[in-house]
C-alpha cells in the first residue's frame, strides 16, 4: 500500500471559520451598526462598541499564482494582524482598525498591480469561469475577455460615478458555471455549430440512451452508422447547448469560426426596489477576436454609457430598461433587433408585449 494511503483523514470539512476571523471581527461579531464608503474601494464599518473597521477592497484577476497570494499575506501581516479575506466576486480585502494603514495598503497593492475600488455605484470584478485556460467545453476564453472588458471600463471601477452598481459576469458556455443569468450585463460564450459525431468511437465512450436523453430538444436519435451503433442529429432541432457533449466527449462542438460571445442585459439578484430578474438577450453573436475582443468591449461600453446617461439615481440597468422600454434600449445602443431576440423556447408567449402601453422612438 502506498504511504500516502496510511492514516488517511477524510470528511473533516473546511476549517472552522471562527479561527480565521480577525480580532476586531470576532469582538464585534453581529454587532455592526452602520457603514460608510469613504472613497472608491474603502469602507468603514462602525460597531455598537464604537470600534471602527476599515476595509480596502482590491481587484483581482481571480486566476492567481501562489506568488501573488504570498504577496497578499505579506501585506496582511504588515497591516492586518495576519488576516485577510476574499469577496464573492473574487476581490481581495484587507481589514484594519488603523485608519493610517488604509493609504499604505492601497499604495502597496496598487503598486503590485491590484487596484482599489469596486464599492458603491461602480463596476466591480467580473465573476467568471475557466475558458481556454482550463475547460473542455469553452466557446470563448474567460480571463482574457474579462481583462479586456475591465481594462476598458476601469474608470468605473476606481470611481463611483454610475447611477447604481453594475454587475457583470461571464460564462464561457451555456453550462454557466458562474450562473451569469441574473447580471446587469452577462457575457456568455456560445457555440453556433452542430456537434460533430465521432461515429467510430461514440459507442465505446458513451451510452447511447443517455446521449439521447441529454438533449433538451430531442434532437438526438439512436442510429446505426457504417454498421456501428451510434446516433444521428436532427439539425433543425439543435440549438448548440452542448448538453450532449457534456455527457459524451464523442460529440464536440467547439469551432474557431462558429464559436463566440453573446451579450445579455438587465438582470439582477438583489431584491432592492424591483424583484430579481433574468438578463435578456442584447447581442446574439460576436465572433471571438482575441486577444482583446474589441467588438465585445465596445458593445459593453455602449450599454454602460447609455444607461449611465439616461437612468435615474439608484436605477439598475434592468430597472431603467423596464421603465423606458426595450425599443428605447435598442434605439439608444444601436444594436440590431432581429428574429433571434424573440423567445421561442418554453413559455415564449410570456415575453411578448401584451399591452397597448407603447413609446414612439
Amino acid at each position, binding site marked *: 500500500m502506498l504511504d500516502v494511503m496510511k492514516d488517511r483523514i477524510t470528511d473533516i470539512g473546511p476549517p472552522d471559520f471562527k479561527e480565521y476571523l480577525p480580532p476586531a471581527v470576532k469582538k464585534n461579531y453581529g454587532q455592526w451598526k452602520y457603514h460608510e464608503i469613504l472613497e472608491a474601494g474603502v469602507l468603514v464599518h462602525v460597531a455598537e462598541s464604537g470600534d471602527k473597521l476599515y476595509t480596502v477592497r482590491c481587484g483581482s484577476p481571480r486566476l492567481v499564482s501562489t506568488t501573488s497570494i504570498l504577496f497578499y499575506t505579506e501585506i496582511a501581516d504588515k497591516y492586518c494582524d495576519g488576516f485577510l479575506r476574499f469577496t464573492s466576486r473574487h476581490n481581495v480585502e484587507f481589514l484594519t482598525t488603523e485608519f493610517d494603514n488604509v493609504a499604505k495598503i492601497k499604495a502597496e497593492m496598487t503598486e503590485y498591480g491590484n487596484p482599489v475600488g469596486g464599492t458603491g455605484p461602480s463596476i466591480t470584478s467580473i465573476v467568471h469561469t475557466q475558458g481556454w485556460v482550463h475547460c473542455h467545453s469553452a466557446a470563448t476564453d474567460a480571463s482574457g475577455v474579462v481583462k479586456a472588458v475591465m481594462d476598458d471600463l476601469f474608470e468605473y471601477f476606481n470611481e463611483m460615478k454610475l447611477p447604481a452598481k453594475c454587475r457583470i459576469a461571464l460564462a464561457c458556455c451555456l453550462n454557466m458555471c458562474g450562473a451569469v443569468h441574473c447580471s446587469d450585463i452577462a457575457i456568455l460564450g456560445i457555440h453556433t455549430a452542430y456537434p460533430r459525431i465521432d461515429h467510430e*468511437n461514440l*459507442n465505446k465512450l*458513451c*451510452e447511447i440512451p*443517455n446521449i439521447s436523453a*441529454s438533449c433538451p430538444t430531442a434532437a438526438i436519435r439512436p442510429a446505426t452508422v457504417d454498421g456501428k451503433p451510434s446516433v444521428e442529429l436532427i439539425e433543425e432541432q439543435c440549438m448548440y447547448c452542448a448538453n450532449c457533449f457534456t*455527457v459524451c466527449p464523442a460529440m464536440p462542438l467547439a469551432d474557431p469560426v462558429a464559436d463566440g460571445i453573446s451579450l445579455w442585459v438587465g438582470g439582477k439578484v438583489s431584491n432592492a426596489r424591483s424583484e430579481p430578474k433574468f438578463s435578456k438577450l442584447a447581442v446574439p453573436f460576436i465572433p471571438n477576436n482575441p486577444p482583446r475582443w474589441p467588438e465585445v468591449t465596445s458593445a459593453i461600453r455602449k450599454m454602460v454609457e447609455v444607461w449611465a446617461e439616461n437612468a435615474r439615481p439608484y436605477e439598475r440597468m434592468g430597472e431603467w430598461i423596464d421603465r423606458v422600454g426595450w425599443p428605447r434600449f435598442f434605439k439608444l445602443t444601436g444594436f440590431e433587433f432581429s428574429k433571434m431576440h424573440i423567445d421561442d423556447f418554453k413559455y415564449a408567449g410570456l415575453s411578448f408585449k401584451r399591452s397597448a402601453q407603447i413609446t414612439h422612438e
Partner: protein
Amino acid sequence: MAKTIEEIADFMFKQVSEAQEVSKKLKPGDLTKLAIKAFGDEGVDKKMGKMAIKELVLSGKCVYTYFGGSFLELPHREGAAND
C-alpha cells in the same frame, strides 16, 4: 430478512459489472433502487444502500465517475486519459 452490507455490495457489484458489459452506466441512486427491488424493503433500506456503496468504493471494486452526472463504474482506463 435484513441483508448484510457485504451481500448488498456484492449484488451491486454484479449490477455494475453487467451494466458495463453493455456500456451502460449506473448511478448510485439506481443501485440502491435495484437492491431494494431485489431484496425488498425489509432486506435493504436507503442507508444500507449508501453503506454498501461506500464499501464498494473503499474496497476498490468500483470508482465514481463523472460524465455530465455521477456514476459508479468498474475501475478502467478512460478514453480521454493521456499517459
